[in-house]
């Protein structure tokens, strides 16, 4: 009764070839970073383990932020096939809003010192701002996108239009200067690691990302709504044919996806500041992560974030110093390499 398909050996070989290439590239990179990286700003890892650990932590913490933002994007796409081009706008709007809320909580608009910021005047604005953009996301979906369900191009164009409008309105409201959300005083110091100083706030950011990731995972695996969403990603029509109200599930998913963009936006505003233009940057970041990981897959978002974060952190540190400028190319080399081996991304499936 077991009728698993028989795999032929030729197919096995053909399947392994691209993987072998990838392993070779990885092996070369590992050897380079460990032993050969003379003349780079970090130096070979065996000579300077401190710099290596710091770069690794940079990679992980940035990956955490990437994951929070990209998981929201991939969740919405996975279920509804909606490419939400306004995801970056929701990110930035949450950042600006959280900064404004924090300023009013602390009672100062400029020169806020970390000591002024209690943990609650960071988490409070985070939750409020994220909830606000989540509601905005639901409104956006109910008013503009619902009627065009299944028309992916139209939905993408609508969300582009929304992102342009939001960008202008944010410029009017918050001005063109970069603003920063201030980390709470409790995490604004440094720790000593292998002889290097490392910002606790970055580790805190990683912790927040882990909490968000675990919460998302529990929600998707342990709740009925989570099961329905995963089922809907696989086969939306069948979910509906089983009597499940897809409209409600879509609205909840849009809420959560936009909420994640908001949480990411507040983390990003604390980590690198909120400024006109970071909406586009973070839309692009989300796209790169989910294309690497596979559109619609949360596992893929984890893998994509880790890979992209690693490349972003390591390439400037381990390129010969005079070539550091070219490090950005490596993000796209990563994208090309992954797509050459897995055209639908690491965990993606054909639509």
């Amino acid at each position: 009764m077991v009728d698993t398909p028989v795999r032929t050996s030729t197919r096995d070989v053909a399947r392994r070839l691209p993987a072998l290439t990838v392993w070779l590239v990885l092996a070369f990179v590992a050897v380079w970073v460990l032993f050969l990286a003379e003349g780079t700003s970090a130096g070979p890892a065996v000579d300077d383990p401190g710099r290596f650990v710091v770069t690794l932590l940079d990679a992980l913490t940035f990956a955490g932020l990437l994951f929070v933002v990209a998981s929201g994007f991939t969740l919405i796409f996975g279920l509804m096939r909606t490419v939400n081009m306004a995801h970056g706008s929701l990110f930035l709007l949450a950042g600006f809003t959280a900064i404004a809320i924090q300023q009013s909580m602390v009672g100062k608009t400029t020169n806020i010192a970390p000591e002024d910021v209690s943990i609650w005047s960071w988490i409070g604005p985070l939750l409020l701002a994220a909830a606000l953009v989540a509601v905005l996301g639901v409104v956006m979906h109910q008013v503009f996108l619902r009627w065009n369900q299944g028309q992916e191009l139209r939905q993408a164009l609508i969300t582009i239009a929304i992102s342009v409008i939001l960008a202008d309105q944010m410029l009017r409201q918050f001005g063109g200067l970069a603003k920063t959300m201030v980390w709470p005083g409790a995490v604004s110091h440094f720790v000593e690691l292998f002889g290097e100083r490392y910002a606790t706030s970055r580790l805190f950011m990683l912790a927040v990302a882990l909490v968000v990731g675990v919460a998302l995972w529990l929600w998707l695996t342990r709740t009925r709504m989570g099961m329905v969403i995963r089922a809907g990603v696989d086969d939306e029509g069948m979910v509906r044919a089983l009597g499940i109200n897809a409209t409600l599930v879509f609205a909840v998913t849009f809420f959560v996806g936009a909420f994640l963009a908001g949480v990411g936006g507040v983390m990003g505003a604390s980590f690198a500041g909120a400024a006109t233009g970071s909406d586009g940057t973070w839309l692009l970041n989300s796209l790169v992560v989910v294309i690497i990981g596979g559109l619609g897959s949360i596992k893929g978002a984890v893998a994509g974030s880790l890979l992209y974060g690693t490349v972003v952190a390591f390439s400037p540190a381990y390129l010969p110093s005079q070539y550091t400028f070219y490090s950005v190319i490596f993000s796209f080399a990563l994208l090309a390499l992954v797509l050459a081996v897995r055209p639908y991304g690491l965990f993606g499936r054909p639509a």
Partner: protein
Amino acid sequence: MSEPLLEVRGLCSGYGDSRVLDGISFSMGVEAVGIIGRNGMGKTTLCDTLMGLVPTTSGEVLLHGEHIEGRAPEKVARRGISYVPQGRRLFASLTVDEHLAMLAKGTRGKRWTPEAVYELFPRLAQRRSSGGTDLSGGEQQMLAVGRALLLNGSLVLMDEPSEGLAPTIVDVLVDVVHRLVAEGTAVLVVEQKLRAATAMAERQLVMVSGRIQAETTASELQADPELQRRYLGVGTAVEAGDHPNGASRERTE
């Protein structure tokens, strides 16, 4: 005769400009009814149209006397049609348990709960934590049936349940169909295999080019190779070898 459970009148539908269903009419009560026909005759389109997955162009569908044509699939399902689609359409990301848990809400106290499904298909109970698509073909079909049963609908709609299954598994499904009907649930089963179709339902509707061409019975169909050839064509002539009359294998083309 009292009001039929399901009544279909002049149902038409299709994709874009092409019309696949061309005026389907039939009605059924609490019984097992088979719809049999060759590939490409519109059998799956009929199922999808009844479920609201393919839009209805014209015609009426009444379930318990209520119009359901043109309704959203979730509304049709909640009115009482439990769908077991062609190819099972299980969820690759969900385990067996999750397939059932997802639909368990509101089943308490009704005939079909996840526990009752596991009782019906003990093999599924052994594979609770396996992924939906890691199961064997037979187990997948059991899960697809079990999942549909959790809706506790008044009509179970099955599209090619025997496809790709070993005869022993088909027998299990045949048994389930008979049990459902005995318990008062109607079953509409769409098939292109004679053996499975005739074992599941005595009343058979023959579908040709988007219409119900004829109504016959399983025994009539089994006894008459000419009828089989006319309505079911080559596919069945090959398969007819395993039916008791040993019908001829001559080709029709």
